[in-house]
């Protein structure tokens, strides 16, 4: 969780592109997700915060653990954009984390892991390594 932003982005990209079909874990129905809100899934021991941005199937997944507030709460933050960057605000102390990169916007040295997410036949799947 202390990996720098670039490292995270690389891992994330590799994750989504290289992911073998077996590595995708099905977590819930797409309809279980509320528009403009998050939900948390347990995937291989990891807490993954999944966000549905808008009414459509635009999904993002980052870790649920807020490294600043030190609690598993990011899925319960408000989704929006800051300076054009899609992000979630931690419900604890309101720092923003990019949904695409996991980067904390206020504190450059902080970021959270990003995971792969997709919808297959109405089911949401997550890829973690």
């Amino acid at each position: 969780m202390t990996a720098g932003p670039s490292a995270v982005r690389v891992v994330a990209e590799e994750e989504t592109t290289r992911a073998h079909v077996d590595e995708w874990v099905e977590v819930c129905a797409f309809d279980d997700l509320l528009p403009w809100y998050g939900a948390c899934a347990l995937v291989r021991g990891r807490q993954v915060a999944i966000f549905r941005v808008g009414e459509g199937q635009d999904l993002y997944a980052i870790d649920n653990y807020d490294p600043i507030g030190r609690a598993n709460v990011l899925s319960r933050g408000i989704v929006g954009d800051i300076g054009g960057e899609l992000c979630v605000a931690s419900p604890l102390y309101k720092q923003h984390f990019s949904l695409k990169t996991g980067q904390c916007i206020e504190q450059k040295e902080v970021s959270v892991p990003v995971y792969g997410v997709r919808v297959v036949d109405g089911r949401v799947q997550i890829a973690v390594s």
Partner: protein
Amino acid sequence: MRTRLVVVGNGMVGHKLIECLMGSDAASGFEVVTFCEEPRLAYDRVHLSEFFAGKTAEDLSLVEPGFYERHEVTVHLGDKAVAIDRAAKLVRSEQGRELPYDKLVLATGSYPFVPPVPGRERPGCFVYRTIEDLEAITEAARGRRVGTVVGGGLLGLEAANALKNLGLETHVVEFAPRLMTVQVDDGGGAILRHKIQDLGVRVHISKNTTEIVDGGAHAHRMSFADGDLLETDLIVFSAGIRPRDELAREAGLEMGSRGGIRVDDGCRTSDPDIYAIGECAVWNHQVFGLVAPGYQMAEVAASQLTGGEQRFTGADMSTKLKLLGVDVASIGDAHGRAAGARAYTYIDEPNRVYKKLVVSENGRRLLGGVLVGDAEVYGELLQFCLNGIELPPYPDELILPQREGKKTTGLGVDALPDAAQICSCNNVSKGRICAAIADGAHSLGALKQATKCSTTCGGCAPLAIQILNKELLRLGVAVRKGVCEHFPYSRQELYHIVRVEHHKSFEDLIAKHGKGLGCDICKPAVASILATCWNEYVLKKEHAGLQDTNDHYLANLQKDGTYSVIPRVPGGEITPEGLVALGTIAKKHGLYTKITGAQRIDMFGARVDQLPKIWREVVDAGFESGHAYGKALRTVKSCVGSTWCRYGVQDSVALAVLLEHRYKGLRAPHKIKMGVSGCTRECAQAQATDVGVIATERGWALYVCGNGGMKPRHADLFATDLDQETLIRYIDRFFMFYIRTADRLQRTSVWLENLEGGLDYLKDVVIHDKLGICAELEQEIADVIGTYECEWKKTIEDPEKQKRFRHFVNSDERDNKILFVEERGQHRPATREERQRLAESA
């Protein structure tokens, strides 16, 4: 060798002198000792009457805590100087002190003059000058019905207001044929008298009191020279002031012909080592009964003592006051005594307004004026007068009513020279104000701090605000008003847009008036506005994603990701069954319990998945959501009131419960809190809440805009003697007006401090319906009240909604970061170290 300075009298002016001296470069050259006859350090006598509105001696204090200690000024509190030995250069005190001096300053003020009427020393006769006087009056008024003030001058009317507020039938007895002889002329006096009589105060003019004896129905009977009689329970003498010059007189200093210690332009008495300042001094045959000239004298004396050159050149005696709610102002040569002076007068009998301008023979200069009933132009007229600004061609336009929005040829602040004195109390010029603004003082509060402007009588505040606004505009300081990057509108504007255009969803609003996706600032703000306007269920699909986590889970998020459960306990009143039920529920679900600071019970440590189960049981036990998570009404605290308390005069619990049910669920820019106390002892701390109510013998007193929290603020007295219906009407209007106009996350206290026109304006809007919106406000709040639903009840009835209350969408496992440890018989979140240890041992 330091100069030993003794200051006799630690009143407003004596203290000012010490402040000036200690603020000067020469401070270290002085060893200062002061005698203070009163039992407390200098306080703000000008605002003495606010003591009745709940200000404490501490609030009124002028001495910043620690100031004297820091500057090593010795104060002999409660000790009075009784003699000056000029030959030995020492001062003797009542308690036997003998203090040598190099320089002596007399700042002994004045005493209230009590006419030599037989019977004036009877118990129940008072004067009005010190905090002790006011305490004695309050004590004596208890259980009494009638109070009389002798003297219809400025202070007399202020005292009359106090008696009225104490609930007494109030009389004013004036020797002269009109009120406020010094300040206003006959015409003004007549209007003033009618206006005051309209308020229920009985005014008796041309009455010479000859005797006070035992009364029949009341404690005293006053007899007048014309044979009339008046019965009253207590009497307050306020028939003028006399300089306290006895010390100086006995020491052989020169006196004024009608008393007072004679001083020269340097405030020096006939003894070059002795100065006199404030109300005890006479300069050029004049005594100054106002604080501003006293402050000027203090500055002059401080300058002289430190080798400076400042001189006293007389002072402007213009005044503006609100007496019994009536605006009265007098400027310069109000009586038109100057040679060739001519006057314009405007009289509006139906509305009881009187205005008079006194102009120079050629009509170009304003010499003076009188305003009764409407003193809005005071600041402007004063500037014309003080700065010798040329009058417009038709000076009467300055006092004629401005109808149909026509702005007359009034004076803009731009027309004032930099040297124009804006604040006479603290001698602050326009130039100094502008400089402070340029240095970053961008609010009235900051200006007050930087320049002391508007900190004494407050009369100059409107003008100061005008200058501030103009300057900010000129400096191009953009007052940022958009709530965030997504909306270029302030919260107030967004509220208006939502109402007027009937927006029911955030998406709608941002599509039409904003940009981007929104964020954690604008979403909850808009959610709150939508909730106030349409009162739809906050977890409705289109609103759910806008809510802050607290509103989303209808509970308060804790540091470890758990939530708290706070049921509503209206007025803090709870049945034994209710207590047992909450105890049972807490025990069953393993919750930590605590009595909150707001008279209810908090249950901590609930996981999201537990919330609906817990709330089902809480609702079944008869409780509702306490909205402890929302920017909404929190609690209405109460004290037991008349039902149980020996002193209670009204049923405060019943009112608190009623108010809490009325406003529960009302969403606002920030949380709102209320309190109701059953008598003035104020055990419910109502004055620390947004809306506080205190019972009196004659109804309810309403206080607004108090705050505990980070920056405590005492609530302001808003209205007294209200029956329940009027009380509720005012609160309805007050809340809606606040909700309409406040910024996001702005408590009522901060809102009021930023409200232009302040408390008076708020009263105009809420009580006098100045904006003509009260009917609307009442309708809007009625809509909210009429559509209240308990959010938790609704949530536990809807299985779809409950689905959201789980930690994982795909598992029933618990969040492994939520770990508790035992402490004091309950449990609490584990600290980081404890978590680590627990993880290791597992």
